[in-house]
């Protein structure tokens, strides 16, 4: 880890069941910083997650629901959780299906405060 976001990502990755954590620019889908599992293509994960988050934000805007905060995608063998809404940065984690999402959500929101 090479920059100021490192400690935030480290805290996220320590959560039980978290495989990877990333800070991504929502606008262009590029990684700002990340802790990844060996062999994982962070660039692609970041781009896909940013795109998902952007779509959620656009749909919320269309529904006049305001800014998007926490987002969670559940799949058969894993989860993606993300928070954003401030200064273009989206924090996201990839987790096991057994991970405690409630706890991850709290830590993501805390981490968002820390980097804002």
């Amino acid at each position: 880890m090479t920059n100021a976001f490192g400690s935030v990502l480290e805290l996220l990755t320590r959560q039980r069941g978290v495989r990877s954590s990333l800070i991504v620019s929502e606008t262009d889908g590029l990684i700002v910083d990340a802790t990844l599992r060996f062999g994982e293509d962070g660039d692609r994960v970041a781009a896909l997650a940013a795109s998902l988050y952007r779509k959620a934000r656009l749909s919320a805007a269309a529904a006049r629901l305001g800014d998007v905060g926490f987002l969670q995608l559940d799949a058969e063998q894993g989860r993606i959780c993300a928070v954003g809404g401030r200064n273009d940065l989206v924090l996201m984690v990839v987790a096991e299906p057994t991970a405690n999402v409630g706890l991850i959500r709290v830590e993501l929101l805390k981490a968002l405060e820390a980097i804002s």
Partner: protein
Amino acid sequence: MSSDIQRWSDELARNPASLAFIDLGEALRRDGQIEVAFRIARRGLDRHPANVEAHNLMARVAVDRKDLVSAAEEWQMVLRLAPDHVGALKGLGFICYQEGRLEDAERYLNHAASRGGGPSVTAALDSIRRTSGELSTATVEALAPSDPQWLFADLLVDAEQTSLLLDESGYVLGGLYLDADGTDLAHEIGAQLSGISDEAVRATRHLGIGDWKSIVFETEIASVAMAPTSNKGLLVVAASRATPLGLLRRLLDQCAARATRWLHDGATR
């Protein structure tokens, strides 16, 4: 064109002042030709502004067009002309129920029941009294029969809950998406969400975490949950921020089961 539509169309062509427009409009809306039905109803109302069934037709077409405000106005007009009109009482009862005005809904349905509204109205009243507003599927379907926009109505017990079923292209198949002002945003939401399934599929495939099952996100004033459907479409459920996420997920599961059944029934009809 169905034989009914052809028959009533011919009748109206022979005699433009006839009341055949009512049957024609009804046949058109049942055939899914909502905008044509709307024009026929409007033209008929211009000629027959005091005709009760013309206003009733316009109200039904307004519901098809997801314009609940106009539908309520037309049914109110029906009641001014014919205070015991059962169709208008049922329609207003249903709109009030949709808006969470359960006392008003009960009042209209009581009135309809006293005028021979039938077992569907009695069952709706029983359900409202017994379960604080939760209507059975059969009851809701009886009150608002063939309109897919009411597909999830009995599952959404809070006025701030809303649900929408989209096809693969983002077109609305069923349900409603009302904002706080009662405006239907279904098509805007559908357009915005089209493609989100593809994004989810790509993300989960790349990560090797299997098929995606749901997406939940929180906004400043609501929580939104989505799930894929059996026709590669998307189910969307939204509720106020006060609704716990766990409860929202249960609601999503219930709506998903309903959507699956409805899609299956539609495929086998």
